[in-house]
Every structure is written in structure tokens, then in C-alpha cells.
């Protein structure tokens, strides 16, 4: 194809050599773990059939799991000194120190905590708050998830460290926009940035997102990329003489942000922007199994740096859950058991759901034309 030696880059170097990347103690006990013990928040003892043990110490990272190289090196030092010379990043953005005795684990805990990084999670506790990158690096963000995460963490830390108990696992995902990079909505509490009002089109920047004029002439309006990606048909292209005009029908827009994700010409007014808070999602097959979260409140302003409105709602949800849930009951199962209305009432947001009853007429028609979900109790469930 080419003689450029850089073309070799098309063959990726994947870190797949288990032998190379796994610590020795892990290799020796790979697949041999027979039991585990929890030693307070954040520490697990894994017991192998070989008799060996590995202790993991789970450490909260700053929002968006951002570390300086300096701090990372300090952690490496601790891992060498008190651990088995290895760390691992968890799936969800915490850092696990690995060691081989409880004392060392407790020592690690002490040291990282003195550096300002709390140890905690596992079992009936907050396991962490996941944040996307948002204003740190992202062009499409509408609210800044890392600072929201910080504001939440400052208030919720005792649930992470185990100072305050929770009924079950709690995780929070904070995403700066509807792309939901923090992991979506299938989690206990999800906070999702959204535009509030339909996008504003900046005519002057639009040409970057459209095919060149010559090519555009040959494409049917409905086939133009920007028109196509809008899932509701809110965007349409009209040709006026030689010029084209992209129009947006606000009534059709659902604020999904797909246009924005694909074209920088879509803008918004910070006044309208806010977050939706969803509750009761989960991925795990425990309880009644995985499910998507549900909107508890479709909009709240996101006012840095303390985001008091968001923090208040999250705190309140947790308080209600703590007070009323059975032991072991995740937020999802708790809401299922007591019912949405009661839950919303306990939180103090009874009035909120009125909005969900508004469904535009054309939508309803079709929704009920095909398989319809039953919105209200039928006799059988009622009696």
C-alpha cells in the first residue's frame, strides 16, 4: 500500500499479554479465588485456593478520574512500598491498590487518605460518582459534570467511606450532555445535562456541516446528513433560490442533541440549560434485574460551583431511600416496591410528574396505534 513506515501504526499494539501485564500474585491465583471477606468500606480480602490472599483498597479519584502524573507517581511509590507493586483502575474510575496483608491495606488507606483521597465503596455504600469530561475537554457539553461531581462528593463522602450507612450499593453518573458519556441512565442516580430549549442555529457556521454547494445541489433535502440525523424530523432543509436554509420546528424537537453532536453550528443559551435527574436504574441482574433509570425531575438549573439545587435533590433521594428501604434494597428495587408515586411523594416532588402526562397528540396517536404500554392500573392490578 505504502512504504511509509508509520503505516505500521495501522496494526495496533494492544496490551493483551496477560503474562506481561498481570502482577505475579494475580497470575499465580488466576481463576483460583474461592472466598472473599470485606474489611470495612473499601477493603476486600480475596482468598485463593492456593492459600494466598490479595487485599484490594479502593480509592476515590477526583472527578473524571483526572490525576496528575505527579500524583500517579506517588501512588506508584506507595504501591511499591506497601503493595505488590501494582495498582488497577476500576471499571468505574476508582483506583485499587493491591497488597497481601490487612495491615498493609490499612496502612495504604491511611496514606492515601492523608493525601486527600478517601477509601471506601463496596457493599451497602456509595461506590463512587462517575463523571464525564465536559468543560475539561469536551465541545458538546452543556453543563460541567466534573464540578457537579465535586459538589456532590463533598456532601456525599460519608456514604463512600462508610461513616454513614446506606441500604445497598449506590452509584451516581454525571454527564455533561445527553450523550451521557458518564455511562447513561441505567444506574441508581443519573444526572444528565440538557439544553432545556430547542437549539439555536448559527447560520454563519452552518456551511461547515453541509456538503459543498455543488454536491448539496444533487442531494435530496431529506438525504442531507444534518436532516437525517434528527430523529424527529425537526430539522428540514429548504432551498430558497440558490441558497439553502436549515429550519427547525421547535414543536418537534426533543432536545436529543444529536444535531449538536454532529455540528458546531447548533448553539444554546446558558439560561435555558439544566440537568435532568434520573433515578432507579441499574445494570446488575440483582433484585429485579437491569433497567433504565426514570426521570425524577426533568430540569434543574446547574449553577456552579456548588450546584445547590442538584445536590439538594440527590441528597433528598438518598435520605428517603435510607429511611425507608429494606436492607439490601437498591434504589431501583425500593422504588419498585413502594411505587413511583409514593416515592415521588416522599421525596417531595409529587407535582413533578404532571409533565409526563403531556404527550403531544401526534405522538400519542401512533404510540397507541402500535403496541401500547399500559399507563394506568388495570382492574387486575388494582384489586
Amino acid at each position: 500500500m505504502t512504504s511509509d513506515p508509520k503505516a505500521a501504526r495501522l496494526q495496533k499494539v494492544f496490551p493483551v499479554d496477560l503474562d506481561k501485564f498481570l502482577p505475579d500474585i494475580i497470575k499465580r491465583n488466576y481463576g483460583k479465588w474461592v472466598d472473599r471477606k470485606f474489611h470495612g468500606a473499601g477493603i476486600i480480602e480475596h482468598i485463593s485456593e492456593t492459600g494466598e490472599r490479595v487485599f484490594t483498597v479502593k480509592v476515590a479519584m477526583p472527578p473524571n478520574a483526572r490525576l496528575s502524573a505527579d500524583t500517579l507517581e506517588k501512588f506508584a511509590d506507595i504501591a511499591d512500598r506497601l503493595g505488590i507493586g501494582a495498582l488497577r483502575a476500576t471499571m468505574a474510575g476508582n483506583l485499587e491498590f493491591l497488597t497481601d496483608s490487612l495491615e498493609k491495606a490499612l496502612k495504604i488507606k491511611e496514606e492515601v487518605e492523608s493525601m486527600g483521597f478517601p477509601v471506601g465503596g463496596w457493599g451497602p455504600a456509595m461506590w463512587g460518582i462517575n463523571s464525564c469530561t465536559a468543560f475539561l475537554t469536551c465541545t458538546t457539553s452543556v453543563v460541567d459534570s466534573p464540578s457537579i461531581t465535586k459538589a456532590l462528593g463533598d456532601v456525599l463522602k460519608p456514604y463512600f467511606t462508610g461513616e454513614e450507612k446506606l441500604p445497598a450499593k449506590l452509584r451516581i453518573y454525571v454527564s455533561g450532555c445527553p450523550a451521557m458519556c458518564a455511562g447513561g441512565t441505567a444506574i441508581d442516580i443519573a444526572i444528565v445535562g440538557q439544553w432545556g430549549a430547542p437549539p439555536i442555529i448559527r447560520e454563519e457556521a452552518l456551511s461547515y456541516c453541509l456538503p459543498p454547494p455543488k454536491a448539496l445541489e444533487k442531494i435530496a433535502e431529506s438525504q442531507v446528513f444534518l436532516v437525517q440525523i434528527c430523529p424527529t424530523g425537526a430539522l428540514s432543509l429548504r432551498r430558497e433560490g440558490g441558497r439553502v436554509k436549515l429550519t427547525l420546528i421547535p414543536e418537534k424537537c426533543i432536545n436529543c442533541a444529536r444535531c449538536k453532536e454532529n455540528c458546531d453550528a447548533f448553539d444554546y443559551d446558558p439560561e435555558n440549560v439544566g440537568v435532568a435527574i434520573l433515578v432507579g436504574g441499574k445494570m446488575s441482574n440483582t433484585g429485579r434485574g437491569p433497567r433504565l433509570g426514570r426521570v425524577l425531575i426533568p430540569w434543574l438549573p446547574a449553577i456552579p460551583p456548588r450546584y445547590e439545587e442538584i445536590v439538594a435533590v440527590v441528597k433528598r433521594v438518598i435520605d428517603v431511600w435510607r429511611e425507608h428501604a429494606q436492607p439490601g434494597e437498591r434504589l431501583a428495587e425500593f422504588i419498585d416496591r413502594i411505587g413511583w408515586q409514593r416515592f415521588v411523594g416522599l421525596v417531595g416532588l409529587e407535582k413533578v410528574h404532571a409533565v409526563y402526562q403531556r404527550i403531544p397528540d401526534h405522538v400519542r396517536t401512533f404510540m397507541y396505534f402500535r403496541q401500547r404500554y399500559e399507563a394506568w392500573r388495570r382492574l387486575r392490578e388494582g384489586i
Partner: protein
Amino acid sequence: MAAPPGLPPPEELLKRADEMLRELEKGPWPSHVSELRKTRYPLHVYGVGLVARKSPWGPGTVRVKYVNTGVLSRWARDWVPNGGEETHFRVFHTPGKFWKTDFIRQIAKISKELGVGLIEIVGQTGAFVINLTKDKAEEMVDALREIGTDVGGSGDAIRALNACVGPALCEFALFDTLRWYAEFYKDKRINDAIATPGFPYKFKIKISGCPMDCARANRADVGFIGVWEGAPEVDQELLRKKIEAGEVDPKELAARCPSGAISWDGKELRIDGEKCKKSMECIRRAFPAIKPGKKIKIAVVVGGGVKGRFGPKLGNFIGYLGPNDTQKAIDLVFKAIEPWNNEAMPKCRLGDYIMIAGIENFLKKADIKLEGMPEMAKTGDEVPYAVLSKEEREEYLNLVKELKGRA
């Protein structure tokens, strides 16, 4: 994006940005701002964004030869005083995301020398992210390849894979998630689809060792989740001991079983394997007296995603593979990709495409056949009227002709 209305003059803006940043360094939770201060990241840009309540970043460009995914670059918007830029690589994580300290030090070194000294230790897809300075991009790629990893996974391509820690550290692991992770990456087709974007949209593959689904496979385009057949395994002896020791309450086990599979007659705990829905509830409470069953299967879910065209979706369960079927699993991924890649509109995730095609049609087109495939997508409509084409009507008529013969 345009400057938000009512932005204060530059000096005032920077001052308020600084106040905002300082506020974010207070409080007991680890602060990203404090970390960022230890780096050469242009923190004022972030601060200005917070004050303006608008992302301060606009799209930038950086070209890295033969690196078509995993590179992202930004310019500060024109309303950010003093400007700024930001470029980062998405880098493949190690299996189980284990970082030995020598590896950490290599990363840190690269980060400091070729970047700004800032690392996102794990991104939400499972890569890690390393900031760099634009002019060091070529060097950074080579440096990363040197230490045994690489840049990739953004755009309309297969993304960084994700697998839970599995047998490396977890008692529940039902299959070797990390070997699957490695085998997938070693496949040439996977490599190419990661290296070069070309699909209708992004494509994610996630692997969880058991139904806890720590890797959130049920939200991937294709996910693999370890399960077992029948009832969990009960070590009655050990269970009795745990009960006597007060560690386990058998009545609670029965009550918390969401499928009503567990019965406790005061002496022995019995589990009805037919009923068991693999919730792991009994297992996590009484482990290792209760463990997953021995006959292991890998549940395959397809079409999950957080949004796409039609909004949030969990995966659709389509059947099982065996715990060693890595090659079949990779084949299945490409079978699933084929009709999607051929037919889907741009920016339709696999799940959106499945909704458009209908899952049964999709499975047929993709020629996917698995053990334990569930039946039937949908029951009939509740609405007895519809507009039907002449062809459709004829089809129905033909179908019934045969029945007429039998009646």
C-alpha cells in the same frame, strides 16, 4: 458556539474564573482542580467555561499519520481570554486495567515529557486518556506503542473494549473475561475496525464475568455476560455452618430470591433451577456456600446504548455461547455488524438499526444462530386496522391457502 450573553470583560472574567476554581478546591472530596494545578493543563479555560456556563472548547484538528481514531483536539473559543488548546489520546488499557508500577512510571514519564502531565486513569468506555501537546503527537504515539499499548477508539469505529477484572481478582468470574478481551484484540478484523472508522456510528463490545455485569455489557452494542444453567450450587454442609454462625439467614435468602426459586424447610435449602433467574442474590449473601452452577454459558446481548437515535436502551438477549467460544463470539460481532453497516443510516447505533429492521429480521439478515435463542420479537398488534399493500395482502392470502386445504 457563540459567547454567552452578558459575559464580563476579560479581566473580570478571569478573576471570577479563578474564584470559581478556588472554590472547587475546597471540601473533602478529591478535587480535579487541585490535580490540574499540578499540570500544564490550561486551567483558566476551564474556569472561564464555568463562569460563562458554556463549554469553553471548540473543535480543533491535529493529524497524526496513520492514526485515524483516538486523537481529539480542541481550541478555546474566541471568547476565552488568552485562549488555550487541548489535545488528548485515548489509550488502550491493560487486561483487568492492572498497572504495574513500572508501567505507571513509564506512563507518567511520557505524560510529563510529551504531554501536560495529566492523565484520566480510566475513561468511561474503558480506555485511559492522556493529554499531550499538539506538536508532540507523533512522538507520543510511538512512545505509547513502545511501552506496549496504543492510541485508538473514537469516531465511527469499534471502541476500546471493556472487560471486568474477572478471574484475575473476582470469585464470581464464570469465564475468562481477560482472555476474551485479549483474543478479541488479537483478531485482525477487530484491529482494523478499531484502527479505521467506517461504520454508521460507534460500536462497543463489553464483557462481564457474571450477571453482576460490572462491565455494563448489557449496555453495549454487543455484550457478553457469564451465566450458568439451572440452579446455583449449594454446599449444604457449609451453608449449615454459616447459618449456625449467624452469617446467613436462610429465610432471608428465600425472601430475597426475586424468582421464588428458593425454598427452606427448616433443614435444607432447595433451589429450583427452572425458576432461578440468576440474580446472584443468594450467592452474594451466602458465598461460597452457594455458588453459581457449574454448567457455564455466555449470554449474548445486542443493541444496548445510552442514546443513539431512539433513546436509551438495554441490550436484547439473543442466546448463548460457550465459555471458550471466543472465535464464535468474534464472528458473531462481525455478523451483527454486517447488515447494520450495509443498511443503517449514519448515526444509528446497532440498537437503533435493530429497532428499524425488527430484531427477528436483523437476526436473519445477520445469519445469527445461537443456542437458547428466545422466541419471537413481538406479539400481534392490539389494533385491528392497518393500511396494507396489495403485496402484503396477497402474502396473507397465500399463507392461508395452505390452511384451507387442511380445514
